């Protein structure tokens, strides 16, 4: 039953601990996660916005640069076409001179200059290649050049076999137009775009409407770029000043950030591409810090909750156990009180039959005195037996009288008490027990003590409790119990000293507490000394205790002597 209880208790306390840990964890971690989550998402949004704005700005600026570059080159040619007449343009020497000036000004950007007549025949040429009289009548750029007053071609291989593009200006009449063309060095143009590099993976390139590269991308392997370019290109060209930003997963499974802007009047598309994780590197750094803080926090909270709950529950179980013990003792005390009443009742009831038995024995004794029995040979034996019955009957009477006088309600009326005589009586009463315990009781009384005005029964109770405690303490080894009385000024001092095992210091402060006992359950109520304390206090006195381990314990009772 008891083990069962214990098992049940363990189960209960474990469940309680778990519940407390759960509550602490939920209550502490939830707000932490919420705050971290909200802050992170806010930071994420604003950081993304910042990255978008930054990249948009960057792309716009570079688009502007490239547009400017193209426009500048076109303007150079236009200026030349307007400044020179057809004769001069037709003159190779003049063209070479002009090319030289341009190259001096812009480095190797201008590769060559050529003058093409309406039939597509390059009638004049200045440059490093031998392209005099080259025929361009079928070339795509030439047809476009004829259609538009100014034209910048896509990058193409052409006759020379390496990538380049051409800037043209149309002149002459509608019937007989001519075209002045300049070849722009691809490398120079390419460098403009390639120098756009951010982070580890950010790079830019330019596509035409057909999705062909107009510049060499820094990284290849962009197989699915087609669809994005198409998407960008289907945009209304009038919105070319706008930058479009999108994030998509490429075929390799990586999320990329794409920033696109149209240039060259919507013919070309500049694309800036970067891995998202690279673009948001700072964000990921922040994320790592947040996760680290959260982890540390969670570990801290969990550890704390486990420790705290464990400690609290063990404290609670300790208190519960104490409470249970106290309940047990209260029940025990009640039981004892009813047993006392029962004993008193029984003692009273036994008294009458014993009286009758004694009287009957007496009657037989009376009868034996008649003459007819005087000669009986067993007369002496009869008389001895009857005497014995009488003696034992009186013994019974004494026992019941003692039982009754100690079980009946204490009388708190104040009497004049002769302390020494009363202690003597009590010592006599305890003599039997002391003999069994191997304890010798010595009394040292001061003679001629004044009468003490206290309740006799209560005072008896105090003294008997102290004597009994001392006997209990010395039960195992025997010893010496010294009771002495003396008068110190206005106070009577009664000392009860034993040389038993002593009281441990930790218990000494609690011995007057109600229900404090070191005796096994059922043996002591833990009330004896607290009752003594209460009684002595009520009498206006003091009780204190001194104890040395292995040397014994001494109780002092000081009671005021009231003179009439």
């Amino acid at each position, binding site marked *: 039953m008891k083990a069962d209880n214990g098992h049940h208790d363990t189960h209960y306390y474990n469940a309680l601990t778990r519940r407390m840990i759960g509550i602490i964890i939920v209550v502490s971690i939830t707000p932490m996660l919420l705050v971290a989550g909200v802050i992170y998402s806010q930071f994420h949004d604003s950081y993304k916005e910042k990255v978008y704005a930054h990249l948009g700005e960057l792309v716009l600026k570079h688009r502007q640069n490239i547009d400017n570059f193209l426009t500048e080159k076109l303007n150079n040619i236009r200026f030349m076409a307007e400044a020179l007449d057809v004769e001069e343009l037709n003159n190779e020497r003049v063209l070479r001179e002009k090319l030289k000036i341009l190259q001096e000004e812009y480095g190797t950007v201008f590769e060559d200059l050529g003058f093409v007549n309406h039939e597509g025949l390059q009638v004049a040429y200045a440059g490093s290649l031998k392209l005099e009289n080259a025929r361009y009548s079928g070339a795509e750029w030439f047809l476009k050049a004829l259609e538009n007053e100014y034209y910048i071609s896509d990058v193409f291989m052409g006759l020379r076999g390496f990538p380049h593009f051409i800037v043209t200006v149309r002149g002459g009449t509608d019937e007989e137009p001519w075209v002045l063309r300049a070849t722009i060095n691809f490398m120079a143009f390419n460098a403009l775009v390639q120098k756009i590099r951010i982070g580890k993976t950010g790079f830019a390139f330019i596509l035409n409407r057909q999705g062909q590269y107009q510049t060499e991308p820094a990284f290849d392997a962009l197989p699915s770029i087609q669809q994005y370019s198409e998407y960008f290109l289907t945009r209304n060209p009038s919105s070319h000043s706008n930058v479009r930003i999108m994030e998509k997963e490429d075929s390799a499974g990586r999320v990329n950030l794409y920033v696109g802007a149209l240039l060259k009047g919507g013919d070309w598309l500049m694309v800036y591409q970067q891995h998202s994780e690279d673009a948001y590197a700072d964000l990921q750094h922040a994320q790592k810090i947040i996760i680290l803080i959260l982890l540390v926090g969670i570990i801290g909270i969990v550890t704390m909750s486990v420790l705290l709950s464990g400690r609290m529950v063990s404290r609670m179980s300790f208190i519960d156990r104490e409470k249970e013990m106290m309940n047990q003792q209260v029940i025990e005390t009640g039981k004892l009180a009813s047993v006392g009443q029962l004993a008193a009742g029984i003692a*009273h009831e036994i*008294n*009458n039959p014993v*009286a*009758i038995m004694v*009287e009957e024995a*007496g*009657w037989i004794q*009376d009868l034996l005195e008649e003459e007819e029995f005087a000669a009986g040979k067993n007369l002496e034996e009869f008389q001895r037996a009857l005497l014995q019955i009488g003696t034992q009957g009186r013994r019974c*009477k004494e026992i019941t009288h003692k039982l009754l006088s100690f079980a009946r309600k204490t009388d708190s009326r104040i009497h004049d008490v002769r302390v020494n005589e009363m202690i003597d009586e009590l010592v006599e009463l305890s003599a039997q027990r002391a003999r069994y315990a191997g304890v010798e009781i010595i009394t040292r009384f001061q003679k001629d003590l004044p009468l003490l005005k206290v309740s006799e029964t209560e005072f008896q109770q105090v003294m008997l409790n102290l004597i009994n405690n001392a006997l209990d303490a010395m039960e195992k080894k025997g010893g010496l119990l010294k009771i002495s009385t003396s008068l110190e000024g206005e106070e009577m001092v009664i000392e009860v000293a034993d040389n038993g095992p002593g009281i441990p210091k930790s218990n000494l402060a609690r011995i007057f507490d109600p229900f404090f006992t070191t005796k096994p359950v059922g043996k002591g109520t833990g009330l004896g000394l607290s009752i003594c304390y209460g009684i002595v206090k009520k009498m206006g006195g003091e009780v204190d205790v001194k104890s040395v381990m292995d040397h014994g314990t001494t109780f002092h009772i000081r009671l005021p002597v009231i003179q009439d």
Partner: protein
Amino acid sequence: MTIANVLLVDDEVGFVETMTKRLTKRNLSVTAAHSGKDALKVLDDNETIEVVILDVKMPGMDGIETLREIKTRFPLTEVIMLTGHATVETGIEGMKLGAFDYLMKPCDMDVLMEKVGEGAAKKRGHEDKIVQARVKEITNRRA
């Protein structure tokens, strides 16, 4: 001629019977009663009762109550209280109410006999004084 006329009152029949025998053997005239009411009735009918031996603890009308009643109605009759357990309080109360003495049960026969004798003597002494007083009164009246 007996030493005294005694009324023994106790609810324990066995006790009363044996005591009656023993006291009778010791030359007392004993009447028995088993309750306070019975005792009063006996006293009403029999004026010769000199000493009442009265148990304190009885069901119904207890010893103290009976004592009070006896002392108001038969003031000259002496009462010896028998107590089951000696308590100072009952003893004092009994004496205050006019009991002659009190003894503890079971009591020593010699002591009891002594007390009964003293009680009877006291009663007779009182009665003699009353008689003498009356005689004196009558003689004085004559004179």
